[in-house]
């Protein structure tokens, strides 16, 4: 591969990676089937994977099933070993003691977001899964996007109703594998759905796909850094906006936010600190950075004698795919002989698009 477009490894991240790796060697593997609605087919896919693993000779048991299984699902359940749930006040929960004694190599747990009855070993089922993995048991499980804690506000806004159970996204991120179970809304509904509900489901579907893409991106990055590779794939758009006192920063940030949203990408806003700014310019910069925060950009102040170099360094470290910058005001006869900073940025930004914006003061 080319030696351009390299990302520099960050020592802190490398250390974190090594630690994660050490945790992983003795831990059970976690695979999650992620869907955006019930009826999309998560349970069946999960059970089918268990069935196929058993056929290949793995020691697989079922530790939790949904209250009402489809006939196809029930057929698989009947063909496999099931650890019966324990009951507290008539509410079922995974029988952790029995499961740990049995110690299979793989266990299937349908419905990761489940609140255990009071008096259980752990209040939440995902904590059971954590313990099973620590004990070296691999877990295959399923979850519906609406139970992921960090997404709940957004999903409540779309659906207009809330759910009480939740699993933290950080736990989802510890999964070795996440598989998306995708289907169109009509496909997973047992009755005909229309208009509003269809749109709601379609929005949830989009959230699930983007969430999975983000997890993949995150894992890919960690994998590459762990391998000591600094290759950048650019599968996710990352936009970097460079603000200066002269640039029309609001316009750039606004456009960048919109583009990042459309591409489901990341947005960074940087300012390369400069000496000798007058008070008005300093205030302008502050206002623009505040605006960047409001637009949910990741904002950073950079320093360095050579602003172009500082920006390129940041871009390379963060796998940036597009840089937004204001037009240069240097245009005199000297500019004919020497590249201005924007031209240098364009020439030296390997594999990165540079979008140059009109400045506020310029008129055609």
């Amino acid at each position, binding site marked *: 591969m*080319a030696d351009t477009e390299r990302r520099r490894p960050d020592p802190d991240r490398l250390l974190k990676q090594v630690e994660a790796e050490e945790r992983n060697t003795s831990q059970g593997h976690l695979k999650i089937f992620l869907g955006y609605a019930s009826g999309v087919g998560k349970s069946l896919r999960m059970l089918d994977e268990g069935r196929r693993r058993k056929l290949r000779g793995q020691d697989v048991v079922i530790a939790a099933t949904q209250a009402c299984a489809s006939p196809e699902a029930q057929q698989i359940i009947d063909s496999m070993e099931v650890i019966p749930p324990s009951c507290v006040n008539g509410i079922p929960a995974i029988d952790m003691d029995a499961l740990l004694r049995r110690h299979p190599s793989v266990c299937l747990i349908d419905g990761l977001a489940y609140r255990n009855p009071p008096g259980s070993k752990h209040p939440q089922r995902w904590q059971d899964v954590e313990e099973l993995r620590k004990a070296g048991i691999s877990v295959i499980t399923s979850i519906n996007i609406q139970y992921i804690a960090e997404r709940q506000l957004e999903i409540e806004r779309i659906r207009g109703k809330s759910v009480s159970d939740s699993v933290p996204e950080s736990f989802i991120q510890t999964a070795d594998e996440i598989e998306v179970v995708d289907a169109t809304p009509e496909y997973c509904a047992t009755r005909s759905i229309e208009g509003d509900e269809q749109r709601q489901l379609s929005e949830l579907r989009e959230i699930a796909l983007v969430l999975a893409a983000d997890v993949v991106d995150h894992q890919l990055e960690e994998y590459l850094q762990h391998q000591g590779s600094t290759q950048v794939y650019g599968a996710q758009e990352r936009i970097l906006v460079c603000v200066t006192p002269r640039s029309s920063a609001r316009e750039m940030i606004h456009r960048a936010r919109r583009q990042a949203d459309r591409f489901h990408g990341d947005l960074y806003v940087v300012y390369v600190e400069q000496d000798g700014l007058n008070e008005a310019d300093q205030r302008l910069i502050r206002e623009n950075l505040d605006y960047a925060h409001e637009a949910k950009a990741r904002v950073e102040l950079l320093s360095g004698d050579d602003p172009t170099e500082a920006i390129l360094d940041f871009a390379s470290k963060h796998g940036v795919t597009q840089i937004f910058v204001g037009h240069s005001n240097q245009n005199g006869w000297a500019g004919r002989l020497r590249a201005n900073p924007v031209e240098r940025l364009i020439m030296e930004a390997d594999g990165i698009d540079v979008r140059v914006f009109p400045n506020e003061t310029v008129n055609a």
Partner: protein
Amino acid sequence: MPDREKGKLRILLGYAAGVGKTYRMLEEAQQAKRAGRDVVVGYFEPHGRKDTIAKTEGLEIVPRRKIDYRGREFEEMDTDAILRRNPELCAVDEFPHTNIPGSARSKRWEDVMVLIDAGIDVLTTMNIQHLESLNDQIREITGVAVRETIPDWVVKQAEEVVLIDLPPRALLNRLQRGVIYGTEKAQRALDNFFKEPALAALREMALRQTAHEVEIRQGEENVRSHHTEPEVRERILIHVTESPASVGLIRRGRRVADYLKADCFAVGVMPSPDPIALEQHLEFARKLHIETRVLEGRNAAETLVDFARRNAVTQIFLSKPPKRQFPFLGARNVAMDVVRLAKDRQVTVVAERNKAVG
């Protein structure tokens, strides 16, 4: 009799051979049949996979058409036979396939469009690497130049795009067990295309593309944005030249325009040192449904900027000049001249994305 309504297109999108597209296609065909629909299989590629072949049981398969080409016999989908049979739903594997010369149409997607026009619903499969606008990025990720591509506007015709997902490790396990190819071919595949990070990157692109396809089908009013005021529609001008870099520039411009829902046109300036290459690039743009124009002007940069101002272009797309022209004492570069001249416009200088191989 009134014209029969157009058929609906449903695309099952994957990111590599072996993720389960064909299997899922046949499974859905079976379900449709059980639901009482009139279903045929127009084309499917068994790849010698037992599970997949078993899935065709009970489905009507329209026999393939045999074509003689240079003394050898090839088989293609028999579009005419499907039209005569006139089912409600037809399953067609490998949407991006290129037909053998001598076929009525050069691409299978063109055959599919004929079926759709005749009112037949089509269920088909493709991988993300066949999407035209991602061609350069894919080549950078995999090191493989994909030749069988589908223009983005064709995928847009689909009523639905559904992701067929499988984590790369599971895919690699399948390969090693010889499920996808025979073991010998599998080893070659493992050595080449099927590298885990590359697969992860392709998978990520397929996930994001599906999310995008879902979003654009939700309708204009529903696009999630932090700003609610109506946006001025952007107009993107792509500067096409005789340089081979124009191809990547056109793809990138098309992709950005699609995502921003912007108008997009491609412009070449004559005289050109290689008018034939320039015309080929403009033709490529037209294939991607980009309107083209040819302007006359001794100074290409001035001609472009003048055109952009007169036509309310908001953004000019240019290729990055080759490095050896820098610093450009004397010999000026069109892209850099445009950056200097068009201070009242947005100018995007697009970097090459397939350097890895080029």
